[in-house]
């Protein structure tokens, strides 16, 4: 029981990390390798507001999210739209966007180093125990989990129910047909990309309450997020949530019952197995 709750809490963290990337890759068709840096930047903001003015990270997200939204919108317009226009095929866009976002990730690491320095940054927030089913868990993890549930739920509702959500899903499924029925694909893709960035930065602010970050840790998170998104199926919110929870549970199981030294190896193994058995991901549509 203890393992399951711990695993679910960790899975919630992973969902926060991966959700933004899923929006960016699934909907806007941009494999954003600078995603982890956006996460770290969100964490930096939370850290800075907390140490400078004791602003709660739970409130900081309301500043972080719109700023990240605007920043990612700009990134899309300035850097990625020219690539989308130039690309002759999906594959070409993929290669170009991978290279560009690599470059962007280095640029953001460099900027963060220049602004914040290379030091670790960590602070204590909500680090008291909460008791669930007879066991104690960190309140900050529980808070992050609850936020993850709220964010994922809201995203799912929005994509499933609203008109904007419908159009975004339409371009995810069939960008060319979407264009034919009068959807401004470029604008919606920019929206999805910006939204993804905002979700990622929010996740960063939340997880910084219990993880120690520094300017160069972003790539670790990008990697985890990629694995989760691919496992869950590109462009599918449910898949991402389930893959994140599965990964959290698996890692906790391995750490508790086998050997904590093998958690990352186990996560990787799971990824490979899913790739081999279902290359389109748990919930992905098989492309023909």
């Amino acid at each position, binding site marked *: 029981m203890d393992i399951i709750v711990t695993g679910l809490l960790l899975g919630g963290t992973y969902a926060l990390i991966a959700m933004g990337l899923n929006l960016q890759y699934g909907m806007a068709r941009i494999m954003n390798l600078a995603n982890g840096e956006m996460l770290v930047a969100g964490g930096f903001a939370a850290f800075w507001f907390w140490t400078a003015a004791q602003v709660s990270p739970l409130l900081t997200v309301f500043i972080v999210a719109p700023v990240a939204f605007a920043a990612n919108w700009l990134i899309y317009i300035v850097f990625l739209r020219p690539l989308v226009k130039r690309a002759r095929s999906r594959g070409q866009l993929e290669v170009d966007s991978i290279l560009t976002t690599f470059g962007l990730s280095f640029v953001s690491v460099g900027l963060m*180093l220049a602004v914040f320095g290379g*030091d*670790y940054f*960590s602070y204590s927030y909500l680090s008291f125990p909460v008791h669930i089913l007879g066991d104690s868990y960190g309140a900050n993890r529980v808070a992050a989990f609850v936020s993850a549930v709220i964010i994922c739920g809201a995203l799912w509702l929005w994509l499933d129910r609203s008109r904007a959500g419908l159009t975004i899903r339409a371009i995810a499924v069939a960008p060319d047909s979407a264009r034919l029925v009068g959807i401004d694909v470029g604008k919606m893709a920019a929206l999805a990309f910006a939204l993804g960035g905002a979700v990622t930065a929010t996740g960063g602010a939340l997880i910084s309450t219990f*993880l120690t*970050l520094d300017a160069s840790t972003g790539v670790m998170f990008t990697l985890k997020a990629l694995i989760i998104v691919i496992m869950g199926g590109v462009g599918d919110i449910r898949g991402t949530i389930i893959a994140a929870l599965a990964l959290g549970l698996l890692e906790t199981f391995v750490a508790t019952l086998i050997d904590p030294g093998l958690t990352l190896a186990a996560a990787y193994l799971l990824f490979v197995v899913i790739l081999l058995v279902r290359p389109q991901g748990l919930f992905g549509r098989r492309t023909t």
Partner: protein
Amino acid sequence: MKRRTFAQIAALALATGFAAVPASAQDTLKVGAVAPKTGPLAGGAAVSYWPNVKLWVETVNARGGLNVDGKQMMLEVIEYDDQTNPGETIKAVQRLVEQDQADIILPPYSTGLNLASAPIYHRYGIPMITSTATTDKADELSAQFPNVFISLGGAQPIALGAVEVLTELRDRGDIGNKVAIVNVADAFGIELANVAKPAFADAGFELVYESSYPLGSQDLSPVMKAVKSADPDAFVAFSYPPDTFALTEQAQIEDLQVGAFYTAVATAFPSYAGRFGESIEGVLGIGGVNADDEAFQTYAARHEEVTGAKPDYWASAMVYSTFEVLEQSIEAVGLDNAAIIEHIKANAFDTVIGTLDFDENNNNPSFWTVGQWQDGVFKGVASTGREGAVDVVVKGPWK
């Protein structure tokens, strides 16, 4: 660009505070420093290494420069980022020697980068007084590279120090016999754990839990839950900076009640106290300083004044003290590297950590191994022969 900035600061300091002659080209010495500013070890170097380079150069320049053969020479720093990449470290050291014609070259940062560049320092005959490398092969290294001095000690004494402190607490009756050990699965953590485990067993401790976790683990709560359910009297973690924080926080959340709580790297960082505040009273950690010593206190105050940050209570002062050794040797024998090396071998030096004296293996035999947070200061409680150790106290409940 960076060089000029430092020169300007130095010149400004001279012009305003100290009525010495302004630095002219032939009166300056070029000081080369290579260490990570990016990459995995940048976080540690930003705390322990770079601020000391800045502090040392400013301090020397502020007192009128280095006295070389009777002439006052100002210092000018050339900094290179090796990106935590040994190949870059090697290249940068060679560049310092051959292109920049640096007069003084400081040692790099971390065990791996120091050892990777040791052959280069050796080939140029440059004294290399390492301050951030730990190795148990000091004798072999000094045989192959007689210019290399090791000041931070080896994994063996550091791990044994932890055993010794816990043994003392047990023998005083403060803690029981059960100890839980975890370590980060990375070179230094593994080395420490491998020394400590048999040593704890030999000392009569019962190992109720032992485990490792990968570097970069995002969730250490399973580890801490397992520790807690093993119900130890003492907890020892040979950990790295991110996990030192995570383990401490998890221990507080799980309310792990032990009489001795030990975490390794970063326990001595000011940011550790900054994050956990008073709750870490009694926490043990790797390193330590003679915190009550006047020399250290002056150093700490200067460090904060010049760099804007407090020094850590382990490597910072050690790094600075090796700069002082170099400084004193140069003032004694001039810029002749071979003479400097001989001078370092032959003499003892008075530094911010007290007396520093290398043995026949170029090894500093007396260094701090364990420190403890007491009244908001991380004080040395165990060492291999340093003065000023305070008594270790049993840890109370988390606050």
